[in-house]
């Protein structure tokens, strides 16, 4: 990149850092004292929406939600009569902060099987896209490796670093990513063909099955945990044949699996439903034909649990909500679209006990929007993570 770019790059980074820092005094206090947010509308997701509701936050946790609650004395009150408040959005699959620039370096293609890698080791919390990410309303993301390895790395669930730098990691090893898409086929590395791809995945899983403790084989060790159901497996596949292959492998090895991508899953949705395999749907922004845009609605209608992903930086993190809205516009039930952004994603990623809805006892990760969450016209006004205001739209 040429010099001027570097300069602007740094400028932007600094501005955003300073922005979050300027918010620091607020949250320094906020940590201890209780914070009460009065919003025009509260979307708890698990319950029905509350007009003119309150959310009470004490040291980073939500303690109460409701229409008319007694405000504890000494509480700091945020008055937002015309704003909507909802739980922080959860991105089911992205590649944030894996490189210094928007072009992520996420593929480790030297070897096709690398379950012992951990994506978190490549995560750079100070990367430009991470610092920008806060204003997208997304508070928690699943960091995933790329698409070219049949068995890629362990994925991590992190909260976007806001006030405190290490607020991040929730789960360092949230699952292993598989890729049964044609992206995993390369001309100069095994596998080069679909049957070869499936054969190789089987081979590795069999090896793991026979693996005994003691002798050092980190890959087999990880995969064994997957087979025993301790470690979920996220299988990336889009076309029908890819998904069918995934289902066969899931059944064969009793994997605790999630389907990622799943573009054409509607054509075999009931198979996923009866196995209740949830799926993290690809960004609908990557689709353009009505035929494809209508698919996700049908999938959810068939009773499959659907969450959304941004594949950031493939699409902007801020377009996670856009993708959900487009899905809704093309037939997905609105409430499911909202759930897909929050509680469903939390459940699929196994963090529902802490995140995904506005309920007493859950982390105070909140987004305050200028309007209805399912309106594209409504923008993010404020983002709160663990009760700290980490982003605030600058007033002009």
């Amino acid at each position: 990149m040429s010099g001027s770019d570097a300069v602007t790059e740094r400028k932007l980074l600094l501005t955003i850092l300073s922005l979050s820092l300027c918010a620091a005094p607020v949250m320094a206090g906020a940590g201890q004292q209780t914070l009460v947010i009065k919003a025009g509308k509260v979307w708890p997701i698990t319950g029905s929406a509350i007009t003119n509701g309150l959310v009470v936050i004490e040291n980073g946790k939500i303690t109460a939600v409701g229409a008319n609650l007694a405000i504890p004395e000494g509480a700091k009150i945020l008055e937002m009569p015309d704003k909507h408040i909802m739980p922080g959005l959860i991105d089911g699959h992205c590649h944030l902060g894996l490189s210094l620039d928007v072009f992520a370096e996420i593929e480790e293609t030297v070897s096709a099987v690398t379950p012992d890698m951990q994506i978190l080791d490549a995560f750079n919390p100070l990367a430009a896209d991470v610092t920008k990410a806060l204003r997208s309303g997304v508070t928690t993301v699943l960091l995933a490796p790329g698409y070219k390895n049949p068995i890629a790395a362990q994925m991590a669930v992190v909260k976007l670093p806001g006030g405190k730098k290490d607020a991040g990691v929730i789960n360092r090893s949230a699952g292993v990513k598989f890729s049964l898409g044609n992206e995993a086929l390369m001309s100069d590395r095994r596998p080069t063909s679909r049957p070869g791809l499936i054969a190789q995945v089987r081979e590795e899983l069999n090896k793991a099955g026979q693996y005994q403790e003691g002798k050092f084989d980190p890959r087999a060790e990880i995969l064994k945990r997957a087979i025993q159901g301790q470690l979920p497996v996220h299988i990336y596949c889009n076309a029908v044949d890819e998904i069918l292959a995934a289902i066969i492998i899931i059944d064969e090895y009793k994997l605790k699996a999630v389907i990622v991508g799943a573009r054409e899953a509607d054509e075999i949705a009931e198979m996923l439903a009866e196995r209740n395999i949830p799926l993290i749907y690809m960004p609908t922004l990557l689709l353009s034909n009505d035929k494809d845009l209508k698919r996700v609605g049908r999938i959810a209608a068939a009773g499959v649990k659907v969450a959304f992903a941004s594949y950031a930086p493939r699409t902007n993190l801020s377009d996670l909500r856009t993708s959900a809205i487009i899905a809704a516009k093309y037939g997905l039930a609105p409430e499911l679209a909202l759930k897909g952004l929050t509680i469903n994603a939390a459940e699929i990623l196994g963090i529902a006990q802490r995140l995904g809805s506005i309920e007493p006892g859950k982390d105070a990760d909140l987004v305050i929007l200028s309007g209805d969450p399912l309106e594209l016209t409504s923008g993010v006004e404020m983002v709160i993570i663990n009760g700290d205001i980490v982003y605030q739209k600058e007033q002009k």
Partner: protein
Amino acid sequence: MRGCVIRLIFLSAQLLAACTLCGQEKTVAIRAGEILTISGAPIKSGIILIQNGRITDIGTEIAVPQDASVIDASDAVVMPGLVDAGALPPVRGDLNEQSSEMTPALRISTALDPKSRVLKRIVQTGCTTLYIAPGGANLIAGLGVIIKPVGKTAAEMVIKDDAALKIVMGSDSTQGNRIPWYEPPTTFYYRRPTTTMAVAWMLRKSFFDAKQYIASHEKEDPNMEIIAAALQGKIPIRVAVRRAIDIRTALRIANEYGLSLILDECTEGYKVAEEIAKKNAPVVLGPFYYYPRTSSQYEEGREVNWNNAGILAKAGVRVAIASNSQEGPRFAATQDESIDLLTAAAFAVRHGMAPAEALKSITLTPAEILGVADRVGSLEKGKDADILILSGNPLAATTRIKRVILKGETVYQD
């Protein structure tokens, strides 16, 4: 009209699932102008009864049950669904696992795409049973599968998995096995065979190793398992060969290890028809071309004989005609070039094959070669109701497929 076709296909898929669950199901009766049973003599103005996807009765004097739904084809010719013993694989991407030359355990069945366009087309050309093989770039390419072209999942389609082990002789398996100047020698293309000699040698070696493997079973090896099974005749071996000398070599090796082969393509088979007949190795012919193509894999077998099928058949070889056309980086044939079998048969007759033989070679003979003659390939009591309804003589260029029935369900209607 065409719109309904696919709905029918979906429907049929569901019904297939349904009828497997619940036993009894409505009878279907076909009134045919002429029935070409293939196995027996043709029947003029006959009736076929179908129940649960099987032919329950066939003949002239048959009482049609009241509740039966009747398909009137009294002005049409009815024949068994075609059997393509080497169909275009409904698989996306490369059909060869290039990372190794020996991939006997490679199962093409694991990569079937039930929604593939290829299948929908093949059905409309009258094929109701297909043999799908891996690509022809590896010496031991892997295991083929026999399917019916309609189904929601691979499991629904497959008739017989591990149907045959594909071996490729001649120059195809040597393709690309060298160091491209721009690649470091670490690439896995740096390997044998690069000559026809090495092809033969490696084949011998692998069978020899298999023998050893059977003798002393120290550790499990999936690849060896397959070759051993083939050696013991549990899995039929299909060898793709074009030139006469390669055919001879194949037969020689077969002798040495007491194998029984099926020969694919066999472009120059007419030169060694007697030898093939003597070994009584069946032959699956195709693809067909008038003069050898200029592209590399057609260089060999340049001495074409249009009447290859006829000559082989006359010599007493069991001949099946298949499209044998494969997609993929190493094959010239594309989807549109995969000719339908009726045309192929018609031209076989034109070039000197007996009409009856030709019809057999796209129905019963391939079914026998594939070992599924008990289910498909002819119109007989108890066989699958895979039926073709044609506007006229199947070998006429102006004849049109009016209806394709698969397991008693109409999957295509014109």
